[in-house]
């Protein structure tokens, strides 16, 4: 892709995002906090509005017209998500509140009934708290042991160490696909194949990969995959769990309530078929339908195109960052043409604290994240109390990277003076 085309993609989609057309602190907003949450295109916003204005109704309950319409839209969104991640069946997609809830669902339902004292769960040190705490809780309940894969010299997943760690005792591997801090793309295919050799199940936290690259769960052969709607142009309050059909069938219910039942008696009940077995209570209907719209929107652009464009931005971003001697980035450097890592950079700037950086950048209209990004153990491992993070999306431009870099240099200069 050439520079001209690259400009074209961001330029094409830019007007779809009303929130980007504003000034913050008197400067045009440069939103570089996409790993925390993405912005929403008009299509998604209008889908929410249309639902509430035209067919708000409960799903799977009424016989009336609006209920049928809401149910159709809610289930159609599930089809869209299933197609988006190439699931074999629509029944393999369970709506959850977010990725955290999806992981907790697996930890409680599958974990509690399948793990015993001495069984091993392998995670990595780069996991988001949402893919760590549910397993800590499970380990406390069952007596299972947590083991952690560390990083290579280039601050990537240590596949060699994983190879020597996985064994017949391993019952579960839960690992992030793309790290929200390091930006590395983990060798998920190899991890899954290795784990399966020992009969271990694998859960993939795909929050940072689903919004940015094509995902094929069948090719990946993961047992579960979780993602969050709000990071992929959808609303908050909705995410999904993908699980292999037989595996989901074998799992007991997580939450009990309406919607997830077949026959209910006073002393017992039978449960609905998949996926509704795991969707107790009135779901986030508008949000699910709008997530379907987000999937339409991303599919329309093409995930290949998004990945290629973001790779070019990544290359440019790292080229610029490397020219600032005070900057130390975390995770691997991008490979040729910006490939091989996510379009985000966690960094520190010598003596300037990330919060101070973030405040100064905010005055220039640039929104970045500062803190531990919900990866405290990783920060401890890296001996970084906190980092700043710029995370990009397909609607960001090179010009925005320039604004960010200029503001970053000024901030360093501002503080550099006092340390000089």
């Amino acid at each position, binding site marked *: 892709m050439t520079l001209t085309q690259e400009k074209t993609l961001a330029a094409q989609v830019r007007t779809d995002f009303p929130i980007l057309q504003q000034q913050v602190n008197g400067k045009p907003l440069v939103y570089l906090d996409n790993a925390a949450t993405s912005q929403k295109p008009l299509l998604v916003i209008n889908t929410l509005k249309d639902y509430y204005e035209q067919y708000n109704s409960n799903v799977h309950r009424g016989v009336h017209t609006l209920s049928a319409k809401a149910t159709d839209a809610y289930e159609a969104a599930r089809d869209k998500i299933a197609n988006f991640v190439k699931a074999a069946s629509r029944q393999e997609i369970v709506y959850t509140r977010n990725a955290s809830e999806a992981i907790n669902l697996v930890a409680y339902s599958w974990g509690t009934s399948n793990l015993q004292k001495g069984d091993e769960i392998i995670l990595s040190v780069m996991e988001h708290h949402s893919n760590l705490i549910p397993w800590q809780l499970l380990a406390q309940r069952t007596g299972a042991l947590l083991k952690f894969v560390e990083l290579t010299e280039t601050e990537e997943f240590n596949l060699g160490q994983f190879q020597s760690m996985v064994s017949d005792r391993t019952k579960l591997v839960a690992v992030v696909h793309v790290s929200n801090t390091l930006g590395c793309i983990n060798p998920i295919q190899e991890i899954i194949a290795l784990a399966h050799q020992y009969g271990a199940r694998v859960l993939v936290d795909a929050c940072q990969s689903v919004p940015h690259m094509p995902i094929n769960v069948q090719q990946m052969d993961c047992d579960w995959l979780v993602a969050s709607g709000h990071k992929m142009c959808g609303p908050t309050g909705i995410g999904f769990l993908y699980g292999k059909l037989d595996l989901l069938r074998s799992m007991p219910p997580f939450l009990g309530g309406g919607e997830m039942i077949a026959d209910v008696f006073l002393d017992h009940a039978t449960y609905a078929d998949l996926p509704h077995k795991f969707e107790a209570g009135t779901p986030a209907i508008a949000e699910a339908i709008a997530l379907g719209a987000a999937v339409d929107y991303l599919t329309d652009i093409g995930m290949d195109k998004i990945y290629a464009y973001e790779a070019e931005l990544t290359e440019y971003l790292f080229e610029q960052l490397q020219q600032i001697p005070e900057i130390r980035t975390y995770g691997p450097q991008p490979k040729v043409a910006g490939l091989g890592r996510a379009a985000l950079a966690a960094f520190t700037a010598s003596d300037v*604290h990330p*919060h*101070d950086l973030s*405040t100064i950048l905010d005055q220039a209209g640039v929104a970045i994240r500062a803190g531990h990004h919900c990866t405290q153990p990783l920060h401890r491992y890296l001996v970084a*109390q*906190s980092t700043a993070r710029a995370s990009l999306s397909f609607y960001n431009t090179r010009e925005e990277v320039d604004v960010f870099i200029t503001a970053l240099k000024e901030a360093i200069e*501002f*503080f550099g003076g006092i*340390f000089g």
Partner: protein
Amino acid sequence: MTLSNVRDLYQQVILEHYKKPKHKGKTTPVHRYQKGHNPSCGDTIELTLRLNETGDTIEDVKFEGEGCAIAMASADLMADVLRGKQIDEALEMVQRFQSMMKGQAEFPKEQRKLNVMQGVAQFPVRIKCANLTWHTLKAALETASSASLEEFISNEKDD
């Protein structure tokens, strides 16, 4: 970028206290000890206090910690003005500082160097950075002895 707003926040005095803190370390002996943190951002502070023989006056305050310029400068400035203060006076100052962060108060003449932190009130997300040290001080003073508390006191619970 116009740095004028930024300069209101990061005044020279603040930057100097950040760059060359005068009160880093631990008091000898330690009569009060308290750790505080802002869990959402990871900033931490460890305060130690030396009191007089009757235990009602602060003779020395020192701090250790990791955090942003605002948090660290606030701790150093606080330590500066606390020497010789009675405990109930110090507790009043905690309240006054927290009011100042809401734009509702300032310090009288003899403690006016603390007023340099007033600019923080214009940056609502940074107020907790400035408050961390004062919040930790309050917990330290309200703890009866130097029972070395391993627990962090969170500055974010009341927010």
